[in-house]
């Protein structure tokens, strides 16, 4: 059973709809016990870092996720879910993230205002890892982004893909059983569904 973590941060229905489409059983839940017992965990999220971190903490789910990452349960973090896995974000100076990975979430540099922020739309993947969730995904395939911040890990070896927006920015990470995407696989058409399916099959 795949647990899609519901912590009040955004449109989690899309992830469930995508999993239904892949004929994968999933439950949208904020129940710590159900999440602990799940075969796989998906941490979605849209909105603001500080607000989301507080909601996770209020539900006690911050502990659950950190503990799960220490174990072996595969976890997929999407968009804000990716950002929360790091230590902190420029978006919310007064809140800490889960700190599963060392590094900071930073604002996308907007080149003296010549770049539109948020980064919205279909941009291409520049793959650094070709297996895991990117198995059978073409280098250069397009996926859907909507974000103003990105994570800069201390350990660059966890970066599994970049994209080009002004500068080359890391937008996916993989380390052992933890996979993170800044883009929305549940909104990225066929390519996105393939990425989700790869995660489900891990």
């Amino acid at each position, binding site marked *: 059973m795949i647990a899609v973590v519901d912590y009040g941060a955004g449109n989690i229905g899309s992830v469930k709809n995508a999993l239904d489409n892949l004929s994968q059983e999933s439950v949208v839940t904020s129940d710590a016990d159900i999440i602990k017992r799940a075969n796989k965990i998906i941490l979605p999220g*849209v909105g603001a870092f500080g607000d989301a971190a507080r909601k996770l903490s209020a539900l006690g789910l911050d502990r659950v996720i950190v503990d799960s990452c220490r174990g072996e349960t595969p976890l997929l973090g999407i968009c804000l879910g990716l950002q929360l896995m790091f230590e902190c974000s420029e978006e919310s100076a007064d809140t800490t993230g889960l700190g599963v990975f060392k590094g900071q979430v930073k604002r996308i540099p907007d080149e003296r205002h010549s770049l539109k922020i*948020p980064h919205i739309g279909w941009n291409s993947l520049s793959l650094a890892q070709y297996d895991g969730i990117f198995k059978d995904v073409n280098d250069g395939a397009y996926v859907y982004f909507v974000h103003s911040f990105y994570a800069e890990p201390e350990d660059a070896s966890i970066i599994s893909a970049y994209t080009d927006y002004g500068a080359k920015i890391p937008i996916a990470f993989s380390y052992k059983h933890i996979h993170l995407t800044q883009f929305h696989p549940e909104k*990225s058409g066929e390519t996105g569904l393939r990425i989700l399916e790869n995660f489900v099959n891990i």
Partner: protein
Amino acid sequence: MLTKRIIPCLDVDNGRVVKGINFINLVDAGDPVESAAQYYQLGADELVFLDITASSSNRNITLDMVKSVAKQIFIPFTVGGGIRTLDDIYKILDAGADKISLNSAAVNDPDLIYQAANKFGSQCVVVAIDAKRNNEADNWEVFVNGGRINKHIDVIDWANEVENLGAGEILLTSMDCDGSKNGYDIELTKKVSENAGIPIIASGGAGRKNHFLDVLERGKADAVLAASVFHFNEISIQELKKYLRENNIPVVLRD
């Protein structure tokens, strides 16, 4: 690099698409889910559903439609039309829409933009602006209520304000060009795009492929919206995208 988005707009009345698409051997496209699926197959990057249902008591039908579309379409879609309160927004997002579009309600109560962005995130708040040229003042003014009431607000001032309040994108419709099929309002789009730090979706006036090129290139739009040229298959999205790519506009061309 980030591509420019081609976004078909579907008018929906009581849960049915109002303008059909006429293809040989395909099912009648009065059903929003089928229309959406077809548009995805044809290469649309996103979709906008404009709810033109007259009576607000039939909103549940729209919500059912949103739920159905969300179950089958895996590209982003926006729902707009008559959204007035945070509760309206919550219901539509909860039903599965990725973004909502605010128009008259935002002009009449700009704080709604701020509240929505705060509660749901800027990424799902599109502010739609209908603008008409005022030749004497040499500017464009914002209209509400389906283009019927002139609020005498300068479009640049309003665009800046909505951005400050937390809008994620602006859907900019030229009332002068809408329906004309003579091209988008390039000057209007360029001025707003240059003044705004958030993405601009251009709307109003598409008739030929070069209109799209013009508004993306000279008009500096980040995305384009069109309705009848796509509904009646006057322009094929795939051919449009090939044409744009030939003219050095980055677009996603799925096989």
